[in-house]
């Protein structure tokens, strides 16, 4: 029983990381109608930036904050420079652009920082708590906390601020928003900026465990896609629920089902992704399926 709880907690922690990246994907999909294949690489790039900052002497939390600011600026820039020219084009074109972005960023990371694996510091101590006989890693709790806190902040932003309201309006009806004097283009860019911030959080929380290398987030991106699709590609709540659920599910499966083991975790996520896409494309909470008819 204790072991089960431990697995659930650590599943929630990795699930929180998937949820953050999944939320980024949903955010971008809702605002610009684009599946951003480069979301993982953008997250990796910002995580490397954090590494550089710390490597040059900055302590963790200032580096964390600065990285989020850089991520935000980067996300805005990517939307304005790379996505805006093609936002009215057919879906195939936009997908290929994000794939080109994936390739470019991945290679750029390797170019700037090299392809060797690096260690990344965690702000949380490496020990464990003992709660009624259940061993819980502080790292896990910290990860869960940071991710959920970020998600909560974002929720608050959308719910209570004017800009957040305007962004929600733009996602629902950009043309009507224009008539109400909303500068739609910049709202979209803002969405990409916030998504990049979420990605950066996911990356910095994942890096201590999976270690830093240029393709670090590729696998996590698959998990995030599976989570987003499971929850509903246009549902922020779905992304979070989907992510946490997937994290726990995969952890439990890999621990208790021998066939899955540790090697088939990723294919399991793939299976979830495929099954949902085929049987219930709008996911648990979504309204739109991941396709433009």
């Amino acid at each position, binding site marked *: 029983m204790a072991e089960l709880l431990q697995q659930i907690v650590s599943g929630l922690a990795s699930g929180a990381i998937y949820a953050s990246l999944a939320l980024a994907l949903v955010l971008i999909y809702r605002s610009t109608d684009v599946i951003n294949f480069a979301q993982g690489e953008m997250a990796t790039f910002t995580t490397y930036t954090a590494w550089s900052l710390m490597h040059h002497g900055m302590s963790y939390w200032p580096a964390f904050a600065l990285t989020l600011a850089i991520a935000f600026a980067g996300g805005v820039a990517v939307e304005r420079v790379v996505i805006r020219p093609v936002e009215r084009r057919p879906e195939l074109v936009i997908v290929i652009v994000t794939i080109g972005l994936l390739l470019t960023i991945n290679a750029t990371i390797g170019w700037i920082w090299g392809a060797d694996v690096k260690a990344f510091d965690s702000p949380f101590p490496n020990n464990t708590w003992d709660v009624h006989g259940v061993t819980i890693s502080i790292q896990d709790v910290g990860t869960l906390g940071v991710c959920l806190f970020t998600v909560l902040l974002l929720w608050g932003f959308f719910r209570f601020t004017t800009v957040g*309201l305007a962004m929600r309006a733009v996602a629902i009806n950009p*043309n009507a928003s224009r008539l*109400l004097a909303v500068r739609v283009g910049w709202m979209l860019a803002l969405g990409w900026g916030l998504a990049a911030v979420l990605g950066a959080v996911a990356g910095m929380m994942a890096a201590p465990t999976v270690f830093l290398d240029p393709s670090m987030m590729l696998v996590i991106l698959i998990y995030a896609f599976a989570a987003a699709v499971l929850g509903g590609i246009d549902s922020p709540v779905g992304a979070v629920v989907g992510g946490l659920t997937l994290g726990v599910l995969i952890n439990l499966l890999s621990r208790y089902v021998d066939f899955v083991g540790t090697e088939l975790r990723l294919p399991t996520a793939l299976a979830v992704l495929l099954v949902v896409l085929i049987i219930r494309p709008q996911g648990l909470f979504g309204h739109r399926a991941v396709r433009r008819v």
Partner: protein
Amino acid sequence: MPLLELDDVEARYGPIKALHGVTLTLDDGEVVALLGANGAGKTTTLRAISGTVRRSGGVSFDGRSLGRRSPESIAKLGIAHVPEGRGLFPELTVWENLRMGAYVRGERKTIRSEAPRVLGYFPWLEARKTQQAGTLSGGEQQMLALARALVSRPRLLMLDEPSLGLAPTIVAEIFRIVRELNTEDGLSVLVVEQNAKIALESSARAYVLEVGRVAVEGASAELERHEGVRKSYLGY
């Protein structure tokens, strides 16, 4: 000097030309109706004014040429366009829709100062503040769209087919409110309508469009009396 002036305006959707030279004016404090059959170019005319369609020709508002301004900056000048289909945000609440109406003048302070006035015209909205806009009835949605447009105290209100899909009593109520806004607050209104009768009853002047051009223009009262015009252009 008229508040709004269109001079030989042309507009196209891609390769298809929708307006072939529309000329009209609207004076401050007037209600003007824009009539015509489906596809005559009424909606396109409103779009040409609010900047949401490619156009050429002169459009000036308050003496200023609108030139190549973006829709956002045109909205800032005080033109409130309630598009066909109402342009509401169905997943947002009634109150959030109203807040978006205040966006153009700075949402926070504007909604606080203007809400009481607007709710005065539509008191039933107060109780429905937290209801999702998409769950309102057709008539209620139209009135919400109107209320949202009024929050920002526009100089010119443009309505695109407010009667579409609504029962006659509700249509009558909406136009009553429009007339009231005009007589009490001096709001200028340009209303596009298929329902020519109610539009003519509520306006001072009217233009009838046909195939992207003005076919007939004049005082609404006269057009109403003119049987020939009614039969040929207005369908009754």
